[in-house]
Each structure stands twice: as C-alpha cells, then as structure tokens.
C-alpha cells in the first residue's frame, strides 16, 4: 500500500505528473499555480520556467507532437497569453499526452481579474477536468494524461485557488514512472500544418472527437451521483462540491469532474429525480448556461454570487434564495513594499516629479498604495510600456513628457520586449521613458528565477539574457543602468534628464530583491 500524505493540490498535480512519466514541465510563475512546477522540479521532474505562457505551451505542444508527455502550468490570465496555441492545438491534437493546467483565482487573492477559464475549454473545444481536492488533483492528473493520449487531444486541468493551496490527504496510487524514451515525430502534413485547407477538415474532426468524448463522459469515472435523503438535487463541480456538502449534506449530489464536454444525459436524468434541482458553481454560470441551453430545467444563483469565492455560508444563502447584501469582513493589514525594497526610491522620485506612471504586474504594483501612490495604471503583463506609448501618442506635449512606464525584470522578459520594439518603430513624437525595476527575480510569486536572472528553476547557473543588451539591440537611444545599491540619488537626476530629451530611453534600476538576498544567504 502506498503511504498517504498531506499535500496541496499543486503538489499533488506535480506528484501525479512525475508518476505519469512526464518528460517535460513548462510554465510561467503566477499565483495560485506556481508551486506545481516548483514541486515537480524539486522531486526530480524535468521542469523549466518559460519566458511566458505562450512559449511554455508551445514547447509543451512540440514535446507532445513528439509522443512525449508534457505538463504546462499557468495562472488563469496566463491562458490568455497562451490562447493562440491553445485554440489551434485542439485542431492538430497531439501524439503524446499534453495537460495544460489553468489555476483560476476567484476572489482575486492575487490577480487583476477573476475570469472563469471554464469558458476557454468550451471555446477552444478542449476537454476539461475539475478536481475538488488534492486526492482528485492527483487522480485527475494521472487520468488526464491517459485521456490525452487515448483521444489525441490536449486536456485542460482547471484548478482554483482553494484547490491549489489547500492541503488535504492524498493516497498516491502510482509509483514514480521512469518515463518513456521511444519518442519520434511522425510527419502528418494535413494533421499538423494548419493552413486553411487543412484546418477546415481538422475542425470537423475536432467536432466529431468532442461528440464522442461527450458520449464517453456519460459513463466516465470523473462524475458521480450521491443519493440524498432530501428532495433537493445539487449539480456541482470543483471546490464548490466541498462547500455544498457542508452546507446541505442531505441533498442529492451530481458531482461533475469532467465539465467539458458535459454528460448532458446524466444531468437530465439526475435533474428529473428531484423536485428542486440547483446548480452550485463558483464564478460564472458556466454549467447553468450549458445545462439550460440543453433544455434541462435547473435553478441557478443570483448575480451577487458570481463575484468572489463561494463558501458554505454563501451556498446556504443561495439555497435559501437569500440575496440580501452580504456583511463586509474586517480588513487586515494590507501588503506593502518590504522595508529596504530597492523599488521605493524610484516611486519616491516619480511621485515628486508628478509623473503619469503606467505600471505593470509584480511586487512593484504595491507602489500604487500609500505612501507612494505613484503608479497610475495596471492592466496586464507588459501593458506598462505599451499603454505608456498610447498616452505619449495622444497627450499634449507637455503632459506626454511626464509619462514614465515602469515594469519589472521578469515581466519585461514575459511581455515587455515587443513593447520596446513598438517604442522604436512607432516612436511617439516625445520619445518615451521606461524604467525597468530590476530586482533580478520574479519576486511577487515567491522568488522564481527567469531568463534574465542567471539561474534556472533549480537555482543552478543558466544563460543570462542581459536586459541592457536587448534594449540596445532593439535600438533604444539611451540605455542606462543604475545600481540602486550604490547610486540611489542618481535616479532622480537621470529621470529628469531623460524626461527632457524627447528620446527613447530605458533606465534599468537594478538591485537584487532583499528577500532573494535573504534566501541566498539561508541556502549558502
């Protein structure tokens, strides 16, 4: 018998990936997904941080074209970045096993939106599994690879924050697999080259595959009915199942584990047995809409429950039809830039100069909070640079010359480089100034390495992309590097000078994150 252990959902996915013989794991850090790849590396899997999610997915697709098993991890908004390959790999299918993990963040504990990525599975026509605890995270990951290989299609493993980060008991059913080695790429021009004449029949084949998968799902092990003693039927999936069991333990349950394509016959059959049948789901009315569209009459939830996470109390309210406004929770102490954070000086200067500051995603987003309040926009990875360009193009000259974009080093590698290309190609009349807050790590998500940090995911030395060389090669006119340890006072002088010049300028404000320094001292 295998030993049971207490694992987070993220650790369980990583363990399952190792036990399933995954040849390569790729991804970009993002809460709540980060620990999957970290743990996979820690237990001996071949894992690598990619520059961004699009690259991560494409590398995974390539491996799976060559008959390997690959896992690709990201947070929900990362799947937007990877959406381009995601939609078309459904058409080409894969020859090995490809599992894409999307870790959604309902309630936005650490995200800029709470998009519900179940829609993306349906939109891309990619089968989706939704575990509700760490045991299922393990089991479903193992099964996802089998499913992917059998049906030659990528599988979306959709997690949410509470599944990723809760620890629950896991009984591992497999031992670590040695993996496979008989990889080969079999040429299939019509299947793999998505020119329109090949893509049209590929879409037809995909529709047929999804129809068969829907049939398969009617009998699959992913869904189960639990009979209750009360005349109320609850259709649910993911973490919502756990909350609902707590809120209404005596109800009948249809717990769905594979939520695209849906087992509509099973749902119809279940709903017909109860006088009252209600869909309990966190986020958007995804199941509700699909079930209603199939002509099955079920109850949904009020729109207020579409926002934020669910919990046992909120589900009680849904069941009671109680849509009265909810109590506000007391708020604790907000996070803030660490004492000694090298980014502080830059924000002090930008505030003093009255700059308009399109910002980006990372720790330095905290520069928008008091006492600095020196970051004016945050949209998505990379938009600090490009939204700044938009403002520079349309604002009157004197205001345009006050626009300074800030972006972190990891975010720059992720999505900032193309922004610099636009900056020199479609140069605003006043030029532009970009400050790269370079703390040489992906700090916000817990100090992950990246292509410009000089180390790989295991913190072994790796090729280091030099940000200043990238900026120069693109054709930025002024590229300055300031060591924030030695010359913090030079920052103001330099920013003032560059703002007055109507040139394209990149200032790299460099100093390692103080947390990463502590970590390195601890490991040494």
């Amino acid at each position, binding site marked *: 018998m295998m030993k049971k252990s207490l694992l987070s959902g993220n650790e369980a996915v990583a363990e399952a990936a190792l036990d399933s013989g995954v040849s390569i794991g790729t991804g970009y850090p993002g809460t709540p997904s980060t620990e999957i790849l970290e743990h996979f590396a820690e237990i001996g899997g071949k894992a690598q941080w990619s520059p961004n999610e699009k690259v991560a997915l494409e590398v995974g697709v390539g491996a799976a074209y060559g008959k390997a098993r690959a896992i690709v991890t990201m947070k929900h908004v990362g799947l937007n970045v990877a959406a381009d390959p995601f939609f078309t790999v459904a058409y080409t299918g894969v020859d090995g096993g490809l599992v894409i993990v999307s870790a959604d963040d309902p309630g936005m504990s*650490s995200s800029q939106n709470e998009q519900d990525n179940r829609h993306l599975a349906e939109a891309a026509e990619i089968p989706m599994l939704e575990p509700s605890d760490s045991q299922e995270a393990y089991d479903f990951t193992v099964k996802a690879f089998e499913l992917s290989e059998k049906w030659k299609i990528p599988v979306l493993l959709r997690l949410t924050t509470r599944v990723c*980060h*809760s620890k629950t008991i896991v009984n591992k059913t497999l031992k670590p697999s040695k993996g496979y080695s008989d990889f080969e790429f079999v040429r299939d021009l019509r299947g793999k080259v998505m020119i329109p004449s090949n893509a049209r029949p590929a879409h037809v084949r995909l529709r047929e595959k999804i129809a068969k998968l829907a049939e398969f799902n009617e009998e699959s092990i992913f869904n189960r009915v639990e009979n209750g003693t009360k005349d109320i039927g609850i259709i649910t999936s993911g973490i919502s199942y756990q909350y609902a069991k707590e809120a209404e*333990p005596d109800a009948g349950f249809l717990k769905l584990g594979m939520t695209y394509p849906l087992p509509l016959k099973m749902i119809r059959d279940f709903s017909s047995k109860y006088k009252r049948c209600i869909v309990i789901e966190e986020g958007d009315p995804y199941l509700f809409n699909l079930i209603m569209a199939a002509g099955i009459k079920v109850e949904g939830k009020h729109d207020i429950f579409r926002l934020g996470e669910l919990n*046992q109390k909120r589900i009680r309210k849904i069941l009671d039809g109680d849509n009265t406004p909810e109590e506000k929770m007391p708020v604790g102490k907000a996070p*803030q830039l660490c004492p000694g954070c090298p980014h502080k000086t830059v924000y002090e200067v930008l505030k003093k100069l009255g700059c308009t500051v399109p910002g980006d995603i990372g720790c330095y987003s*905290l520069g928008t909070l008091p006492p600095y309040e020196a970051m004016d926009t945050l949209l998505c990875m990379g938009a600090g640079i490009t939204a700044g360009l938009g403002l520079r193009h349309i604002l009157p000259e004197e205001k345009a010359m006050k626009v300074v974009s800030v972006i972190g080093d990891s975010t720059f590698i992720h999505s900032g480089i193309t922004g610099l290309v636009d900056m020199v190609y479609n140069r605003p009349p006043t030029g532009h100034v970009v400050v790269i807050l370079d703390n040489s790590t992906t700090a916000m998500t817990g100090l992950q390495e990246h292509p410009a940090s000089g180390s790989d995911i295991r913190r072994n030395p790796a090729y280091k992309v030099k940000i200043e060389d990238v900026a120069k090669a693109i054709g930025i006119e002024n590229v300055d590097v300031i060591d924030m340890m030695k010359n913090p006072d030079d920052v103001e002088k330099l920013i003032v000078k560059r703002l007055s010049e109507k040139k394209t300028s990149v200032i790299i404000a460099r100093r390692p994150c103080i947390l990463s320094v502590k970590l390195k001292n601890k490991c040494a």
Partner: protein
Amino acid sequence: MNDTINIIIAGIGGQGVIKASDILSEAAFEAGYDVKKSEIHGMSQRGGSVTSDVRFGKKVFSPTIQPGEADFLLVLAADQVDNNLFLLKKSGCLITPEKLKDVKLSEPKSINTALLGVLSSKIEIPENFWEAAIMKLLPGKLSQTNIDAFKLGRNTK
C-alpha cells in the same frame, strides 16, 4: 460534521503562520484524523495580514472556516487580534502572545511553535505526533529550539 475542530492561525506575513498551520495539520494527520488546511498565498507575504485555516475530524469537506465558526483562534501578533476576532465562535478559545507573558523563549521567532504548545494542551492530539511534526517541518538545528518552545507553551497554565 459536528465533530470537526476548526482552528485559525493569524498573524503577519513572515511570522510563521503557515509553518504553524503546517505543523498542526501534519500532527492531526499523523494522529489519524481527516485534515484540510487552507490559506491564501501571494500578496500577503509582503508584510500583510495572513490567516490559515485548519480543520480536522472524522470527515472534513470544506477547507475553509467561516466567520464565527473557529473553535480556536491563535494570533501570533498582538496587533492582529482585533481584526480577526470575528472569526472566533462565541464559545471559542482565543490564544495570543499574552498567554506567554511569563515564558522566556530562547528564540523569539519560535512564538508560533510556543503558541501551538498552548493549543496542544486543549485538543486531542498526542504529544509525540506534535514533536514528530515539528522535526519534520523544522529540520536541523531549528528542531530542538522549537520543541523546547512548544513544551514551554504546552506547560503554560
């Protein structure tokens, strides 16, 4: 599900809230209970408020504890008591650094394990599971310091 024990550990990022809830969960798990624990990672590590929920019993479904349903509330920072009190049951037990005012810790950072010691005398998890959990999760030279702190807490009246 009435036999489930709900414990919330609260404090500031960097204080060892999550380490403490890991130790508690591990001890409860080894003692044979079904266990779930949950917290939010990410932003909170930048010096913000952190809470971690631990639930154990015969069978646990939800990993989170709702306001007013915590049987025990362990708060590692005195200034984090007021904003977390709403989580505690009316009949619940509050455990704060105040409980350790007569105790001298050799390492102030081990306040998390010392408060776990206070908690341990009030719940049914045998002492050997606690010590094993501390040794597993705080290995090396940290083990003994924290076991000592735990014992000081456990013997506090």
